[in-house]
Every structure is written in C-alpha cells, then in structure tokens.
C-alpha cells in the first residue's frame, strides 16, 4: 500500500504544482496585456439605417446598497464566529457559506470584496489624494478584526471565493506538507505585486485577474473563464487551492489568525490523541503533537536558527537588490510607461499603426519628451517599489525559515493558527466533541 500511496501523493503534488504554474503562467503574461475596451463587434462600415445605442457605464452602487453590503458582511461575520466557536457545526457553517456565496458572489457579483479592497487601502496609503470609500474600508478591516478575535471565520463562512471552491470540493487529497509550504509563497508574491501595482496607481491586478468573478457575473473572457475553471477542477481534489496558495488577503488573515484571541480548537476539551482528525482537514491545516524535546535536537535547532538568522539580512538585501532590478520590467504595466514605449515605437517606425492611447496623447499636444520624463519618474518609483517588493519576499522566505527552525511544543492535535480556515470539518471527527454533543442533546 505504501508505494501506491507515495506514488499517488507524488502525482497529486505534481498536478498541484502544474496547476499552480499554469495559474502563474496565465497571470504573469496577462499582466502585461492591455484592455482595449473595443466593442465586441465593430459597427457596420456602411449606412444601414441602424442607430447604434450609446455606450453607457453602469452607475455606481447606491449608498443604501453599499451600506447593506457592509451590514450583511458584519452580520455574516458575527454569525460565522458564533457557528464556528459556539455551535461548532460544520453543516451550519456550510449553509452560511452557501448563503454568502449567493449574496456576495452571484447577487453582488463579487464586488466589493475584502481581497480586492486590499488594493484600495494600499493606494490610499501611498497616494494622499485617494480616499478609500467607507464601505471598502469596512470590507477590508472587518474580516481582519474578526480574525484577530475569532480566527479566520471570514474564510470559513463568508468569503464567496472560498465558498465556490468548497462547492466543488469532492475528493480532497492531502497535498504533501513540503509542497504546500512552498506553494504558499506564491500568495506572498501576489500580495507584494498587487500592493506595488496599486500603490503606483498602475492597476488593480487582484480585481483584474480574480478567477471566479466571471462565474459570479455569468460573463467574462475566455482566458479568465479557463483560469477559473482550472482552479475549480483542481479544487475538486485539492481543498481551496486559490485560498491557500494565491489569495493575497489570505496572507494578511494568516497573520491576524496567528495572534487571534479565540480561535478554533479541534477538540472542545483536551486532545486524546486518537488521530481520528488527522485526515479530516482538506486544507492540511492540522498540525500534529510534537515529540518531547531532547537536549540533542534542541542544540541542533538552535544552530539552525542561528544560521538562518545570520543569513536573514543577506537574504533580504539580496532580494531587495533583485527586486530593484525587476522594478523597471514591472513598470511596463503602468499605463504611462506603456504609452511612452508605444509612442516611441510608433515614432521610430518599429510598429505599424496607432492605438487609442497614443492617439489620445497626440491630441493633447503635449511634447513626447514630457511623457518620457513622466514615464521615467514612474519607472523610478518602480525601482524603489521593486526594492521593497524584494525585501518583502526576502522577509517572507527568511521568516518562514526561522519559523520552521524553531521547536514547537504541542501536546495534541491542533489547528494551525494561521492556516486554519475555521471550516469546522474537524469537529465532527473528534470523539470528545461527539461526547459533548451527546451530553448537550441529552440535556
């Protein structure tokens, strides 16, 4: 059985890695693509008597609807916390998630969402002229506040992105811990890029490449539909791949969850180490009890830790330097830089024809040199932003290594502080919980 299980794990790992790479492969090239905003079909080029309807933009959400959204979010978070921590019912949490999927996903079409609100907050931090709308701020901060108090109850029962993946989860297989650990770095990179692009007022990449919004809106480009479908198909066998390995907001929630006050406990009393819950978590968020410490492994752990701590500044510096090198390339996604490069290519005859942005720029009568100077300033900001992006990723890798070098002390099976999504599945596997329910039922 063991070789077969090992082979199955390897296959799963390879599939997961392949899907993750495919996701990255779709996201990164798409980041440089420009939206054309062209109509779906060109209008007729001859007189036919047909009057083309005017292109209209949807009006902004009414304040009442936005307030209602925030109120629903607050209520849902409170209910989720109550269901997870007090009622401890997986079924109730699942129904809440379904309701939130229907409301925030299909009814409100996935917007506003806390994941995307991260970019608004980032932009507001770096651009004094931008004010975050109150409802967006509420969407960003409320889940974080609840996570600080109750763990990741937002992920459990409120987030529509998580809920739609849970709907598709059919036969969860365990992803090897090392692979899971490595893939989680993608979320840090994604968060860093999203903040960089938002802070430089380049693009809201999280919104642009949100994989499930096409399903929520029942409309979308083929590439985004394919990306969403790939993640959902992967999600049939791997619990919430987007949440675990890509969600940028999940990184922040992970930090908050790590220091949360009242978080999920698998057992309502004390762990009897029956091991029944070990395979219950489809997200690999249950950590096992640790063996007793010995003087030998304590020394080894200290040495490892000292080595990593010593290497940490070098790692951060190197990553910062590399990020700085990466900055100019990342800057090409900024509209000003893209316009400057296109204009230069047109002027030098390197491309044929024109595009709307260059045409619009020429109409302004501004000299190209002014645009180049502006683009150079943008690139300079990306130079600095790239350094910070590198530092962020260097810290993410380094501190994770530091975390993994320590010798934790766990007496029983526990839900990982930052990775547990508070879905409440593990409760049903705990015999202590079973006893509690029986007693409560009797009462």
């Amino acid at each position: 059985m063991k070789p077969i299980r090992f082979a199955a794990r390897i296959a799963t790992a390879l599939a997961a890695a392949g899907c993750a790479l495919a996701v990255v492969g779709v996201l990164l090239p798409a980041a440089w693509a420009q939206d054309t905003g062209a109509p779906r079909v060109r209008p007729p080029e001859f007189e036919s008597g047909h009057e083309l309807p005017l292109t209209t933009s949807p009006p902004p959400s009414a304040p009442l609807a936005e307030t209602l959204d925030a109120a629903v979010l607050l209520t849902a978070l409170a209910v989720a916390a109550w269901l997870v921590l007090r009622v401890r019912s997986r079924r109730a949490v699942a129904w809440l998630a379904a309701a939130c999927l229907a409301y925030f996903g299909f009814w409100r079409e996935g917007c506003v969402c806390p994941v995307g609100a991260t970019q608004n907050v980032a932009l507001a931090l770096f651009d004094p002229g931008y004010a975050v709308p109150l409802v967006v701020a509420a969407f960003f901060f409320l889940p974080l506040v609840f996570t600080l108090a109750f763990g990741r109850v937002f992920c459990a029962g409120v987030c529509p992105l998580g809920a739609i993946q849970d709907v598709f989860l059919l036969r969860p297989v365990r992803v090897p811990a090392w692979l899971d650990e490595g893939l989680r770095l993608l979320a840090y990179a994604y968060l860093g890029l999203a903040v960089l692009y938002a802070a430089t007022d380049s693009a809201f990449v999280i919104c642009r490449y949100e994989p499930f919004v096409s399903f929520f809106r029942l409309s979308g480009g083929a590439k985004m539909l394919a990306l969403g479908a790939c993640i959902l198909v992967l999600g049939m066998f791997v619990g919430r791949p987007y949440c675990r390995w890509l969600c940028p907001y999940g990184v922040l929630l992970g930090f908050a969850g790590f220091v949360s006050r009242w978080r999920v406990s698998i057992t309502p009393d004390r762990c009897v180490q029956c091991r029944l819950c070990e395979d219950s978590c489809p997200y690999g968020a249950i950590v096992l009890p640790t063996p007793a410490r010995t003087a030998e492994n304590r020394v080894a752990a200290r040495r490892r830790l000292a080595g990593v701590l010593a290497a940490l500044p070098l790692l951060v510096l190197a990553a910062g330097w590399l990020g700085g090198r990466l900055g100019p390339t990342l800057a090409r996604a900024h509209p000003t830089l893209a316009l400057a490069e296109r204009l230069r290519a047109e002027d030098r005859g390197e491309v044929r024809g024109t595009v709307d942005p260059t045409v619009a720029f020429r109409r302004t009568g501004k000299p190209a040199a002014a645009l180049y100077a502006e683009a150079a300033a943008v690139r300079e900001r990306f130079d600095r932003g790239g350094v910070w992006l590198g530092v962020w990723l260097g810290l993410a890798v380094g501190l994770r290594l530091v975390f993994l070098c320590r010798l934790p002390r766990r007496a029983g099976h526990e839900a990982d502080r930052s990775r547990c999504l508070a879905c409440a599945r593990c409760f049903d596997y705990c015999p202590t919980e079973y006893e509690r329910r029986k007693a409560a039922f009797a009462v």
Partner: protein
Amino acid sequence: MTDGNPEALPLDDEIARGWKRTAAGAGAVALLALLLAVSVHLGKGGADPLDTPAYQAAEQALVRAPGDESVKQSIRELDLQLRREYFRRRALTRLGGAVLAVALTVFLVAVKRARPLRAPAPDVPEGLEVPNDHGRGARAARCAVAGAGLLLAAAASAIAFGARDRLPDLEALGRQGAAPVAERFPSADDLRRHWGSFRGADGSGIAGFVEAPVAWNGATGEGVLWRAELPLPGASSPIVWEDRLWVSCGDAGRQEVCCFDAASGRMLWRSPVVMVGTKMAPPEIEEETGFAACTPVTDGRRVVAAFAHGFVAGFDRDGTQLWTRNFGPLDNAYGHASSLAIWRGLVLAQFDQGHAQDGKSRLVALEVATGRTAWETVRPVDASWCSPIVVRDEAGDQVVTVASPWVIAYAPESGRELWRLGGLKGELAPSPVQRDGRLYFAHQDTALWAIRAGGTGDVTASHVLWKAADGLPDVCSPLCDGPRVYLLASDGELTCCDSATGKTLWQQELGEACYASPGLAGARLYVTSRKGVTWIIEAGPAWHELGRAELGEEVDASFAFAHGRIYVRGRRHLFAIGR
C-alpha cells in the same frame, strides 16, 4: 447532531447507487455541454466576424473599385451573413453554458449525496502512537520554502535581466527633450531642403538651392529630365521629399494621390481616397479650380491631401490610406482651394466658407498620423482660397491665415488666437508670405500690405508698416526675396516693390495670363504663364530677363524646387526639369 459519526448515518447502498448514476449522467451531460461551448467558441466565426478573410478581401475589392455598387452590395450581404453566424454561435455558447451550469449543479449535488463530505472515519494505524517524524517534515518544509524562494528569484532574474536590454532610456529621452521630437517631426533644415508643402517649407516659394535650370523645352525634351502622365486633372502643386514626389488629382467622382519616383518619373503608386459610408453629391465648383486644387503636405513619412469635396486623407509612403476625414460639403462658390500646411505632427486645413456671419469658416488641426482633430477654431471670415503659413521665430511659432476681413494668427499647438489685423476685403486667394519678421499679403480688392508679425489682440492700428496699390494680384501669391516684394497679377503684370517702403521699383507686362505663383532660386525669379511659358528674371531692382522657356503644356500649379530641379505640373503631365 450526529453529523460526522459514520456509524450513525450508514449510506443506503441503493440510494447511493442511484446518486452515483445521477452523478454519472449529469457529468456526461456537463462534459458534452462543455465540449459544445468550447468547440463553438473556438470554431470558425467565433472571433470578430469582420476580421474574416472573406470580409477583408471584400473590403480590399472596394478599395480597388470604390464606386462599384455590386461590390458594396456583396459586402452588405456578407456582413449580414457573418453577423448572423456570429450571434448564432453566441446563442449556442450561451445555451451550452446554461446546460453546463445545470448539469454541473446536479453532478455536484449527486456526488456529494453519494459521498458526503463527512467522509468515513480515517484509517487509524495500529497503535495510537503519533508518528515521530516532526524533524523530517520540518526539514522538508524548510527545503521547500528555500527552493520556492530560489525559484522565485530565478524567475525574477530571468524577467529582470531578460527584458532589460529592450527598455528604452526614458530618463535620457525625458532630459534631452528635443531629441524624440526632432526624430518624430521634420527639422527646420529638413523642411528647407525638401519641398513638402505649397511653395515650400514656409510658403515663400523660395528654393533651398541657388542653381536652378534656366533652359528647357517641353516639346523637344531639352532640359527635361522626365515627363510623366497624370491620370486625373488637378491644379494642385507637386510636393517632394527625398526621392519621392506626390501630387493630388481628381474629378467629381474620384480623388487620388499619386506618388512618383523623383529621379525617374516612374509612378510608384496611385491611391484613391476611399470615403466608405459617405454619400455626398460633389460640390458645384468652377471648372478652372477643379476638385484637386489644394496642394498636399508631407512630413516625409506620410502625405495628406485635401479635395474640394471637403475630404482630407492621409497615406503612408507606400500608398496605404491611413485615414480619411470629411469636412464637406463646403460652402465655397469657386471650389475649395486652400492648400494644407504642416506644423510638427499636425496638418492645418483652412476651411473658409460662406460669409463671416455664418460662422462656417474654421481652421482645423488634424493629427498627421491619425487624422483626428487636435483642435478646431471657428473663424469670423468670409470664404477664401488662401493657404495658411507657419511663421517660425524665436517668440514662438504661429499659423497665419488671411481671409476677408481679417489676418489672424493662431498658436499652432492649441488653435488659440494670438492676434488679428482687420481691413481686408474681397474674394481673397493669394497666400501671405513672410520675411524677416514681416508678413506681406496682397489682393486686388485690398492692397499690398506689409505688417509686423506678432502682438496680441487687434493690431490693426499698430502693426501695419505700409500699403501699396500697384500690380495687385487676385490669384498668385507674392514673393519676397528680402529687399523686394514681387507681385504677379493674373493678367501677367509683374510688379517689383521695395519691401521697406512699398515703393514700386519696376513693372513689366508679360502679356499672358498667370495663375502659378512665382518662385525663386538664388537670384533667379521664375514666373510662369498659364500657357506654360516661363520667364527667368534676375531678382533685382530693375527688370532683367535672363531667359524664357516653354513647357508646351498649360500650367496653373506653382513650381516645386528640390534636388536642384524644378518639378512642374502641367495640365496633363508632370515634368522634372534639370539633370
């Protein structure tokens, strides 16, 4: 309450089998629907229907035969057919998507009912000992994190250093400022060296070289480098840039731009102006003016032509039509004849029409590359046939226009009016010329005026230097060589005035009607009659004829001076005179 206790909820085998069958059926339907949607999406006609080869071929056919109604009809039918096909496919895709959604929902429900999320209890290994492999797991995790970090670093390096060489030095471009502008727009030297607009770079009619031919004969071919037949009539003048020469020509039904090899006279291309979607009766105009009286302009890479219909069209050097604009119909009794001017990336078109109070007259700046309107200014003037000129000096560039009753200067980048000078009257056709900060313009109903270029607001009272009344033209533009101003009246009277005072220095009757404006190369003045006779006169304070040459063909267009040659447009042919 007993959620999760496998013993409490044993699955009924029969029910489970039923759910499994349902799941299998729904899954099959979902798969079929998915395949249907994908195949329809990827299939022929899924993209923009107007990008299909058939449609583009039909468009090309229309470009070749723009007046062919059968081609237009076939395009309409093809367009309708392609659109129907496109929307049929979209409807199929939507249907496939709806079926897929329903089938997928049934599939997911059925699978979950057959195998609920509360899975059976896990296999617990014998003995309840927790495996003591924390160290190994942590080591693997550390390796994974380090490996992922290295992979990210490798990917970042590949992206950063792979694209670095292709990144332009924007800092330098931004600092240098003028460099990209000079690259994009012809420099002042380029403009002087070539003959890219009516009467040359600044509309002065003065060649950029001094030794021009003095003898030729169109009938015998003496002194004529080449002669090329023109496909359609036109009164516009040729323009030249490097090795190419362009002329516009046309009639009521067809307008074209023709490009010739300046060295050999071989026609390189002729491109019709295709105004798709425009049905407009041709304007009623004077036959003498014709439909192609406006001289085109070029920046060396593109050529822009205007026609009496109000059409303006841009072409690239290879004759591909880049854009068209329709400003017609124009309210102009004789036919629109103002030539185009060029300033940096903008083409300036003066559409003076009707009467001043009608508010129809306007100066339009179009982007050379796209034809889009950069700015447009309504002008309080009557219809005119004058061409705008660009005055470049240290105080800043300005576009000077002449029409009754105002000379108006505009800022070329915005169309903002800089100054105006009033008092002009009549049906003005001669264009102004500039020299040493002065502007000269003349018309038989007004006078020869010398004014200082510049100022703000109405400068009528302050900027007029002098006026003169001898030998006033009604068609030909004046020419100023510095100390003197030359006027050529339509009846062939040539007048020379002192540019400082306006005093007449000499007058000479040529005895033939003239429409072409005079030109100057070095110290030689070239004056051509409508019959094609050219007088070569020494530019000086006294009449001194150096020679006389005959083209053997009627000439209404002004000369183009480039490459040491003179390019002349006759009634039916184009001539290159010189070596």
